[in-house]
Structures are given as structure tokens and as C-alpha cells.
């Protein structure tokens, strides 16, 4: 068990380093984009003077390294800053409390996690069940059908899947709402109902990967001596797979699940746009469009953090799924 604690600590420290590198890369990348916040906000009617004035107000006229260090200093103290849009609005109109980036992102991030959670609840059990069944009835019509279905859904663009689902589940058979306008203080049931259609779309996107890994990891074990032994004990094929093969196939399956969950947090902007779902993805894209660096930075840190934590969890669970490591001699 000591080794697990060591891995966790080691990985968390490496994770912090990764976050630092990510923030530098993103900061530089956004600055390399043509135009800045002032130009993006003022658009075609911009005068030199107006641009200069906004730049001065936001500190955009300062050296890039200084700006980065300033931002970093804030982050270390737990202050993610205030979005440029908010600051600009206030300096023009005056008054009012400024919403910090943290306050701006928090509800959006909550929504994203809710959507990811609902999707995972549907997609993970579904793909493992499909994978187990595909391994059990390998090379049968069911196996081929499941493969065909999941592969075609992963190969289709997400917005296409979304519109197909809207067509069937909201238009022809109107059982679910096609718009996911979530707001604060909404009841859980209603929220779930509104989230279901985007969640189903994302389920179609992530199932193929997890199912195929489950199937492959199990089939790879089927020729091992302990599986033969189980069969020779007269154990039913289903039990052979679920009890004897699956526990030994968990490590690769867990890793693929972690990758897909990370995708659910970081890569779902297209689906959010189609369903008008107020998640972090939309906020992120809007912020990039107007070069609102504090928001972009914060969102990227969250994305990177999600990848790091999920991969760490996957590694730890892989270790725990191996009795050799769980119960040393």
C-alpha cells in the first residue's frame, strides 16, 4: 500500500508541474493569435485611440512575461482574476460588483460535470455489458452488429448524431426536450430530463472505444490456462467471462474509461452548442474568440487537471485491481 501513496504523491507533484507548463503554453498561444481583446471587442469601428485606451485599462500594453507572472502570482494565491469582458464593461459603465473568473466558471463547470456524470452513468455500464456480451458471443451476429453500430456512431460527427436524436426523440416522438436550457435552482428531475438528450448523444460517441477495449481485453485472456481450467470445471461461459476473465482484464478497460471521461469534460463543446447547454465548453470557445485570456487560462487549467486526476485515478485503480500488488507476498 505504501507504493500506492508514493505514486499518488509523485503524480500530484508532476501534475502541478504539468499545469504550469500548460498555462505557459496556453498563455503564449493565445498571445500568438492575431489580434487581442481590444481589437476583438471593438471590431471594425475601432479607432487607434479607443484600442489604446482599452489596452491600457486592462494592462495589455505591458510586457507579456510580466503579464504572465502577474497572472501566475494571482493563481498561486487562489485568485484566477477577472475576465477582460467584465473589466471592460465596468470601466465603461462603472459601478456594480465584478464577477471573478472563478465565480463565472463555477456554475458552468458544475453543469459540465453533471452532463459528464449522467453520460458516464449510462455509457460505462452499457459499454462494459456490450463488451462482455460481444466477447461471449464473439464472431456471432450480435458481436458484429454491436461493432457495426458503435463504430458507425463514433465515426459520425457529433452534431449529426445530435440532430438524428433530436429528430427521433424530440420531433417524431417528442419524449425529450430538444433544448437543454439549464438554470440555477432547477429541480434534479427536470434537470436530468433536460440533460438526457445531450447525454445520449455523448454516450453514442464514447461507447465504441470502451466496448471494443472490453471485448479485446477479455478475448485476449480466453486462451490462458486459468480460463481453460474454469471451463474444465464445468463453469458456464457467462460466468467464465464475468468472474474469471473480466477481473483480470480490468487494467486496460479502466484506462480507456478514464480517457473517455476526460473527453466528456473537455471535448463536448459541439454537443453543448447544438443543445444550447450552458457548459464550460461554450464559455471557453467564447473566451477564445474575444481573446479573454483569464477565462481561457482558467478553463485550460481545469481541462488539464481533469486529465491528470482521471489518469491518476485510472492508474491507482489498475494497481488495486491486481491482487499481486494489492496483497504482496
Amino acid at each position: 500500500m505504501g507504493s500506492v501513496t508514493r505514486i499518488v504523491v509523485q503524480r500530484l507533484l508532476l501534475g502541478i508541474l504539468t499545469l504550469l507548463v500548460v498555462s505557459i503554453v496556453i498563455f503564449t498561444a493565445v498571445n500568438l493569435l492575431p489580434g487581442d481583446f481590444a481589437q476583438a471587442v471593438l471590431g471594425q469601428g475601432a479607432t487607434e485611440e479607443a484600442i489604446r485606451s482599452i489596452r491600457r485599462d486592462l494592462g495589455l500594453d505591458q510586457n507579456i512575461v510580466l503579464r504572465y507572472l502577474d497572472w501566475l502570482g494571482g493563481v498561486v494565491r487562489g485568485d484566477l482574476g477577472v475576465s477582460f469582458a467584465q473589466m471592460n464593461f465596468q470601466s465603461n459603465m462603472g459601478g456594480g460588483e465584478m464577477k471573478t473568473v472563478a465565480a463565472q466558471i463555477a456554475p458552468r463547470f458544475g453543469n459540465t460535470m453533471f452532463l459528464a456524470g449522467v453520460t458516464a452513468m449510462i455509457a460505462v455500464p452499457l459499454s462494459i455489458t456490450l463488451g462482455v456480451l460481444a466477447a461471449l458471443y464473439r464472431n456471432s451476429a450480435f458481436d458484429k452488429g454491436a461493432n457495426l453500430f458503435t463504430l458507425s456512431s463514433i465515426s459520425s460527427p457529433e452534431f449529426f448524431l445530435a440532430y438524428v436524436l433530436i429528430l427521433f426523440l424530440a420531433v417524431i416522438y417528442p419524449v425529450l426536450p430538444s433544448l437543454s436550457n439549464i438554470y440555477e435552482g432547477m429541480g434534479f428531475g427536470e434537470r436530468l430530463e433536460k440533460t438526457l438528450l445531450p447525454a445520449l448523444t455523448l454516450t453514442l460517441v464514447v461507447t465504441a472505444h470502451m466496448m471494443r477495449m472490453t471485448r479485446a481485453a477479455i478475448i485476449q485472456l480466453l486462451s490462458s490456462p486459468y480460463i481453460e481450467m474454469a471451463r474444465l470445471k464445468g463453469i458456464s461461459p457467462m460466468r467464465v467471462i464475468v468472474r474469471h476473465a473480466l477481473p483480470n482484464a480490468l487494467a486496460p478497460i479502466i484506462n480507456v474509461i478514464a480517457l473517455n471521461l476526460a473527453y466528456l469534460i473537455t471535448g463536448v463543446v459541439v454537443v453543448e452548442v447544438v443543445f444550447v447547454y450552458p457548459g464550460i465548453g461554450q464559455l471557453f470557445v467564447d473566451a477564445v474568440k474575444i481573446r479573454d485570456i483569464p477565462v481561457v487560462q482558467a478553463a485550460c487549467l481545469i481541462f488539464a487537471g481533469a486529465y491528470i486526476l482521471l489518469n491518476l485515478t485510472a492508474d491507482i485503480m489498475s494497481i488495486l485491481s491486481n491482487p499481486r500488488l494489492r496483497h504482496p507476498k
Partner: protein
Amino acid sequence: MSDKSHRSLLLRVEDLQLEGRSDETWTPIVKGVSFDLHKGEVLGLIGESGAGKSTVGLAAMGFTRDGVRISGGSVLFDGTDLVTASADTKRQLLGKRIAYVAQSAAASFNPAHKIIDQHTEAPVRHGVSGRKESEEDAMELYARLRLPNPEEIGFRYPHQVSGGQLQRAMTAMAMSCRPDLIIFDEPTTALDVTTQIEVLAAIRKIVEDFDTAAIYITHDLAVVAQMADRIKVLLRGEEVEEAETRRMLSDPQEEYTRSLWAVRSFKRPAKPAPALDAVPVISVQGVTAAYGKMDILHGVSFDIHAGRTVAVVGESGSGKSTTARCITGLLPPRLGQIEFEGTPLPGSFRGRSKDQLRQIQMIYQMADTALNPRKTIGQIIGRPVEFYGGLRGRARRARVEELLAQIELEPSQYIDRLPSELSGGQKQRIGIARALAAEPRFIICDEVTSALDQLVAEGILKLLADLQDELGLSYMFITHDLATVRSIADEVVVMKDGEVVEQGSKDDMFTPPHHPYTDLLLSSVPEMDPDWLSELLKERGLENIGDAASDRM
């Protein structure tokens, strides 16, 4: 081992034929095997690898591995034909009335579950007994099979238990439903002699106690002589002959059977002892070596003289291969040193000159994994020829051909082949040629024959002996097979737990008095006499054989 043929018939295998798939076509691998098995009777199936023993054993359970199918004949178990029976019918019988004990218990226990959970699975699933009952029964069986801590050992995971103990736990698992028939598929092949003898005694006792019929598959005649009432010999999927054990041993009818019986007869004449003032080729001096912080070797010393063979024997884990790693410089010793012809060698191979490296070569146990599967034989042998001898082009090829001729493989036929196109014995010959290519004075042979059939192994031993006489080579022969030691060694070094417990000339070694551990090793080697195990047990008692005795030393 009384005559049980008058008892009621349990299993009748008639003209059983099996086919295996290779390159999309089905080719026959077992061409008509028939036998009867009565209640409580033990049939020994023997033959070399590729004889189809395991395939027949599994087919007797109505089971075939992927890529194998039953193409004809019948397997009548207590009135049911397992060849035509539905999968469901077979599942009712397997585990409950017919059980299987596999060669490698370590691989055949599921690493994810505790031993006892795997033990109780069959009785609970087949509705033979409840979980609690079955657990208690398991502990009783563990005790019967003389496993240490029978109350507790089942609650461990397979990796927490040693190989010999696992093998006994697997025999207990096979017994869990008190089957009528057990198939033992080489259950002791992977074990040390001292462990093997315990497992053999345990298996024989439990089979007799419960009056279980068994098919005992092995390639080791001495083992089968202890276990079986009758013996059936197979050769390349065909029956050679079948007879009652004693008659089979004393009076084999077929030429092939006689040749199997005669394998262990190869023996080299003893060489005169080396001169007292001779400088040994390799001198291991007080070597202590460690993996990490754990000392594995403790002050190991022995000499190997020119033109002589020193056999290093001992159980797995006794430090034989670690000593070899020290000599080759792969593991620098913590204390002590290795001398080559009187000059100390640098501890690590990195510090040794090319000429020093050249003098010490190695031949490995698994020729399969020691040869690069993507290189041709010419490339494999040509590499050291070029590296050490500096030969290129035509000269290099000529030298490779010369080496191939030396190991008795026709150069023109083999030089462009890949390792996968050779048999096990031929691959091992390539391993020898590769070692010879460096023109060394000294070769370490690490269990070079233990993965080979006896007839093939004998050929390799003869070749090594001839090469030694011709080229004046010295060998360090790592082995756990005392028959091999008897046939080729000049001197013997016995190791246990990283220490040398006894060393001397072969004749001294094989004549009493022995060091107690040497005595234990020697007495654990099965002999062809069918009464050997019974007499040994009578003479020494269960407490004084195998690991139980070894652990007390």
C-alpha cells in the same frame, strides 16, 4: 497397484482421432487411439512432445483447445459419448465427475481470486455441496495433501503460495466434488525433484484414498512407473503399445519403447583428475552477490579446469543462475572475484576487454526465446563471427558453414532458415554454434536440455561432449536433472540457498556418504522401479522426503 481390470468400466476411448488446424487446413494430429479405464485404475500416457498426450487427455474430457477438433471415434464416459454430447451435458460432468489437473498450477489458478474461492466454485456451482461445507472439505483435503497451515492457506491468493504447494492445492481442487476420473497433465514437470516427490506422494495417496480413476500424462518414465497401473506409449499421434506397468518396464515389445527406456544410458568415461598445480580456466573465489539489498550468494567458491565439465546442481532459487551471471559479469559480485586463467576479471562485463568477453560464452535454457526470430541462422551465427573474429563477407559465410557442420546441421540447408523453421533440438544446436563462434575457452550451459525431450536431449549432450574433446572446452553445466549430471559431469557442485554445500568429483558425489542435502537430492530422483516411491516412503516416512526435509536443513 493391484489388477483393477475386473472392475466396472468407467471410460472407453475408441479409435479417437483429432485434427489440428495449421494454415487454414486440418491435418490429423492423433490418428486413432483406444483405451479402457476401469474404476479406480490409473493409466499412464507417455510419449515425447508432439505425441498428442495432452490432446488425448483433454479429448477424454470431451474438450479440445482452439484450433483442434475431434474428427472421429468416441469417448464413452459411463454411458455418455462425450464426442457427440451437447455442451450442457458436458458441463454437467466436467468438474463434478471428471476433473483436470494442469501442468502449471501457477498459470492455471486465476490470479484474481483466493485459492479456496476457486476450490469451492465447482461444488457450489454443481450443487454438490454448500459453500461452508465445501470450505471445510477443502481444509481437510489440504491437510491430507500435507499442505502447511491447511486452515489458512486457502485464503491466500495463488501468487502467495509456492509452486509445489499450488500443485497440491490444484489436486485438492480436482478432488472437491470427489470425481470418478481425474486427468493429470504433467503435474510435476515444472517442479524441482525434491518438490516433485512430495507432490507425487500426495497425488498417489489421494487417488488411492478416494479410489479415483486417473489418466496420468507425462514424458518421464520413472514418474509414470510410480503412478500408473498400466502404461500406454504414444508416438506422433499413434499408439505404440500398452501394457501393465511392470511388464512394460521389464519387457517392452516395440523398438521405439526400448529406445525411450534406453535414453538414460549415455555416460562418458571419467577423466583423470587435473594436476594439482594446474591453473583453472575459471576460478570463482568467495563470491557474494546481491539483488538490491538481499544477498543471494554467500561466499561461493569453486574451480573449473581446462577440458572438464563442472555440473552445478540445486533446486530453483539455490543461486545456480546467479553464479553464472556473476561469471559473465552481468551481476558484479559484492565481495570476492572471478579469475580467468589466473587473472582476475573486472566485476562488470563493461570493464572487460573484448578478448575477455570472448572467452566466456553462454547457452540458454529456452532456445526459443534466446534466438532472434527475425534473423536467419546465418545472421545469428555470423554476428559473433564478425564481432569477435573480424570476418566479413565470404570469409564470414565460410566460418558460419564450418560451425554449422560442427553442430551436425547441413550448412546449405539451414543457413538461410529462420529459427521458427527449426525443431527444438535444432534451435538448441544453433545456440551452441553461436557460443562456439566466439571461439571461447569456457561455456556456461544453463539448463540446456531441460526443455527438450529425452532422445533429443541425449543428442545435445553427446554433441557437447564431442565438442569438448575436440576443442578442449570447459563447461559449467547448470542443471537440476541428476541423470544429466551422471552422464556428462566430471565434477559436481551442490548449491542450496546461495551456498555451496558440497563439491567434489562425480564418483565421490554419487557414492555415500553424502552431505544430507546431496543425499536428499539424490534420493528424490525417481527411478524406473515401480516400487521405488513406496519403498522410499516406507524407509524414510513422509516427514523425511522433499521440501519438508529440505526446509529443516
